[in-house]
């Protein structure tokens, strides 16, 4: 071996070693990050099994394990809240998906008078804080008898009513499907409706699932509006509103571990569903969200 090739190979070794060091560092970093990200959830899980006390303590691993918190949940209004949220989530997922797809397909595929104007108008509408419209929506809903104990249909109505505004992501996806497919199908004798049914929808599985998934997940986390519509009536609360109350100053001492147990029960189905459909979610986010 010549002198030159020895130094070259030594340098090569150096490169390899350097990348090994940096990769090890990155692995450590990622481990730390993962721990930080998972810790709160692990804590919630552990504390939901704690029986010896119901308030916050300075340790995490329960001294006595048990299902008392879960059993207590069923003595509270929690099952009712859970059903409320579940019904809202399922119905919203279906209807909102239909509306969003109608809207985004139309804006992606049709060139009609006022299309640009419509999109700009919706962008401007989006700049108004939606928070303020709640009070009037509450009045309208209460006139329709859809508040307090009957909050479920009211919530559904409000969630889906304006969902057409959230067309960006799926429009971005539809825009990536070549227009010539529509044209070919129309020349082949398809009506616009058949084009949607036979060509576009079968090709849009990822975005349909993404839309369903996000529409299903949103109602589980909505606090503000649900709180408004239920107006303190326990029968009309969703999980977020109901459980928020448990962490109030006067309740937290007796309900803290129940909150954890409830949190586990709420997070479980959503997380499982999410994990199963993760692929589509990632596709939706990376594909549509940025293009907007």
């Amino acid at each position, binding site marked *: 071996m010549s002198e030159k090739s020895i130094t070259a190979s030594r340098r090569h070794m150096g490169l390899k070693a350097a990348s090994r060091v940096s990769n090890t560092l990155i692995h450590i970093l990622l481990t730390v990050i993962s721990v930080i990200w998972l810790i709160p959830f692990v804590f919630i899980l552990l504390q939901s099994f704690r029986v010896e006390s119901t308030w916050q303590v300075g340790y995490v691993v329960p001294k006595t394990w048990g299902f008392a918190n879960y059993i207590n949940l069923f003595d509270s209004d929690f099952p009712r809240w859970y059903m409320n949220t579940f019904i809202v989530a399922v119905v919203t997922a279906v209807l909102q998906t239909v509306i969003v797809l109608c809207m985004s397909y139309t804006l992606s595929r049709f060139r009609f008078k006022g299309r640009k104007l419509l999109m700009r108008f919706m962008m401007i509408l989006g700049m*108004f804080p939606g928070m303020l419209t709640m009070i009037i929506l509450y009045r309208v809903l209460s006139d329709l008898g859809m508040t307090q104990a009957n909050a479920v249909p009211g919530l559904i109505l409000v969630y889906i009513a304006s969902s057409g505004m959230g067309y960006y992501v799926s429009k971005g996806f539809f825009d990536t499907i070549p227009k010539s497919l529509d044209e070919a199908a129309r020349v082949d004798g398809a009506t616009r409706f058949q084009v949607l049914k036979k060509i576009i929808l079968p090709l849009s599985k990822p975005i349909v699932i993404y839309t369903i998934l996000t529409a299903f997940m949103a109602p589980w986390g909505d606090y503000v509006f649900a709180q408004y519509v239920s107006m303190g009536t326990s029968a009309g609360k969703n999980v977020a509103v109901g459980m928020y109350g448990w962490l109030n100053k006067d309740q937290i001492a007796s309900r803290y571990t129940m909150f954890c147990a409830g949190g586990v029960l709420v997070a479980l189905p959503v997380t499982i569903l999410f*994990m199963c459909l993760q692929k589509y979610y990632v596709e939706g*986010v990376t594909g549509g969200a940025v293009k907007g």
Partner: protein
Amino acid sequence: MKQYTDLEYLRLNRLQRLGYRLASGFRAIPKKLASFFAGIGRGIGKAGRAAANEFSDIFTTFINGDFKTKMSYLVMGFGNIARGQVLRGLLFLLFEIVFIGYMVLAGGYWIGMLPSLGFQGREEVMSKGKFGRSVTTYVYHDDSFKILLYGVLTIFFIIAFIYTWRLNIKQNQIAEKILKSGKRLKSGRDDLRSLVDDQFHKTLLALPLTGIVVFTVLPIIFMILVAFTNYSGANDGRVNLFHWMGLDNFNAMLNWSSGATSYAATFGEVLAWTLIWAFFATFTNYFLGMLVAMAINKKGIKFKKGWRTILVLTIAIPQFISLLYVSKMFAKDGLINLTLMDLGIIDMEHLLPFWEDPTWARITVILINIWIGIPYLMLITTGILMNIPADLYESARIDGANAWQQYSKITLPYMLFVTGPYLLTSFTGNMNNFNVIYLLTGGAPTNYKSTAPGTVGYTDLLITWLFKITQGAEAKYYLASVVGILVFVVVAVISLIVYNLLPSIKNEEDFQ
């Protein structure tokens, strides 16, 4: 400022170039604004001309039209029915009947009351009940809330009617023309069929747009109007009438005359924190998310999918659980303080004031927001990072770029270029990020110096503040509406500036 030619520009140094681009970007704004307003002016002129044309068209159609057309001016759909388009005709006729019925029965009242918002509120009537005891009963008269709401709705309805009436005339005109040229008119069945074909977009848009008009547009108009009244909260309007106040509320909110104790001072403070928060929330997440994505993507890293799944998992868990839990974790009597106390690091006297000290609270919410946001940003940036053509990096390596140079000269410009619009929406989204602030701190710690309504706190954003203004017995909804309008103005101005600056700033980073 001097305009440089391309060749002159190339001789400038980096700082000068940046300055020049920024300056020319800002310089373009007045011009763009001017052209924007000129555009509006032209639009108005155009609209005026169009309206004049419409009127003359309506007139000449009447003069030149046959009996059926003339009759349609009074009875909508008459021409359609007489010419065999029964379905269309009946729909027109039905609409006219409904409209007239509504206006006679209710609409007239709402419109008539709109200027005053009602004359008489709740009336107490004392009457002698059984056993001679006096009983108070309440008689309700006008309801300002309903007057405003249904008044606006009635105006919408009138506009829709005028549009439909005009459509009805136009159809007569077209039908006459088609019949004259010897062609067949579309039958009701043709109309129905075209709703799934060439007019399919109307079918698809009907439902979503109705929803948006009723549940977004109408409430927003209502909200804007409320800012000009003294409507204060959820339950009045019926008990106490409210009235038009002109610009008084804006004056109350924006008047500086009482200095540091004025509402305007509070508004300024909250706005400043909102902007700071939006800036940090957007960019910390963006860069750290990108960093994590790049770390996971790096060659030689194992369990790529595993790392990603762990992070993505946290997106699935409803935010109210994680935020509320973490909020309690950082509380004075929360897990962190208790643990540190058990470990003997701090004592009862020196608990860490995560939510009690303004600066601590502000930093903590930003840090927790990073925890919330990184997984999402990691996902987005992963997708884009993988889309950067590999040959860009190969070419850069051959040109002698090291890892940092590759990042700063290729990755970052590319990312900024692709995600520019996303960053803007993310910024404005963070300005209105109600959930994170409200669930974490509820705005705490309270700012006792402020005299403004809504017990404003140091972590309150404009959006949480305006929510608090509408709550409770002291609610001042009209002031919340003013804040809401100002939020809109701020968001719109930022969007306008960024949109105008973006192209000039990324000139050199053109990847397409």
